């Protein structure tokens, strides 16, 4: 493992740029750190080129932006949700995993991204949150 960050990764620009605040990486949850590490580790080991992964990431983000442009109520996935989806795609593309393995292990997988047809205006019940 390299002891210094790969500038190609840490200095990505544009839509794919890692979310940062004053230079520090922003992770909201533990899974985001893990997903980050998995994608970087597999690239460092030569399982794929960073650009292979980044191209998926840019496409994922672009698709979500386009969907929101058409429909402002479209879901807004977080950066690392795009990241995770991109990682799964590149793993399948490179033959490191199969779709079945990801779904078999990953339980429900990606939740449906479109609201149910019929356009029910019933508000989504809010989840009670412990204070």
């Amino acid at each position, binding site marked *: *493992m*390299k*002891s*210094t*960050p790969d*500038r190609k*990764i*840490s*200095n*990505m*620009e544009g839509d794919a*740029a890692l*979310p*940062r*605040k*004053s*230079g*520090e*990486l*922003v992770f*909201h*949850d*533990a*899974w985001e*750190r*893990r*997903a*980050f*590490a*998995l994608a*970087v*580790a*597999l690239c*460092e*080991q030569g*399982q794929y080129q960073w650009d292979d992964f980044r191209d998926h990431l840019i496409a994922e983000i672009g698709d979500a932006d386009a969907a929101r442009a058409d429909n402002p109520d479209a879901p*807004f*996935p*977080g*950066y690392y*949700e795009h990241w*995770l989806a991109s*990682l*799964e795609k590149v793993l399948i593309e490179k033959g*490191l*995993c199969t779709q079945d*393995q*990801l779904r078999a*292990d*990953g*339980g*429900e*997988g990606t*939740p449906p991204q479109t609201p149910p047809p019929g356009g029910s205006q019933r508000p989504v019940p809010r*989840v009670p*949150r412990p204070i």
Partner: protein
Amino acid sequence: MSDDHTHGHSAHDAPPNPYLEKHTTPEQTAALEKRVQALESLLVAKGLVSSETLDKLVETYENDLGPINGAKVVARAWVDPAYKERLLKDATAAIAELGFSGLQGEHMVVVENTPDTHNLVVCTLCSCYPWPVLGLPPAWFKDAAYRSRSVVDPRGVLRDFGLELDESTAVKVWDSSAEIRYMVLPERPVGTEDMSEEELTALVSRDSMIGVTKVEKNT
């Protein structure tokens, strides 16, 4: 504070990045947690990654101090007068010449220390910092005491860092913002005329590029 000093906290933050807010509900978070855990287990089982490597790897990226980029910029400016001229004129472009980028819309401005003028960089309202060249900001840079005192008593701050300036040396304080990130071009120490660019790079400290210290020949 005068009325023209209107930039609020948001002006100091990087341009709005929608991903800085958390969007997932607790249920979604739990599902994602499970999905990543399963993926990790799968990849570990295949022998592609080890969990220990993953922890270390995140640390490497989170603690990316790398002020080496800034040091290379400084050393190049010391040995190449034409580069120095470009750097002081358009720092963003000159820094990009060396392959360093990653700023998100901010402009870099490099200010030169001379025998007459010493420059000090601060972000009075938060912690705006040219991280692609200087890495992560040190904790004291974000400290309220440093942020306020640098403006009121810059000489006192420098004294705390062990730098006593002549009374005749002017001190200029530069307040970084979302749009402009400052970096100091320190003075080349005397007695380094025979050193190579690479050797010079090793002398340049992060603190000297913030302006709280000078570059010394022997560190």
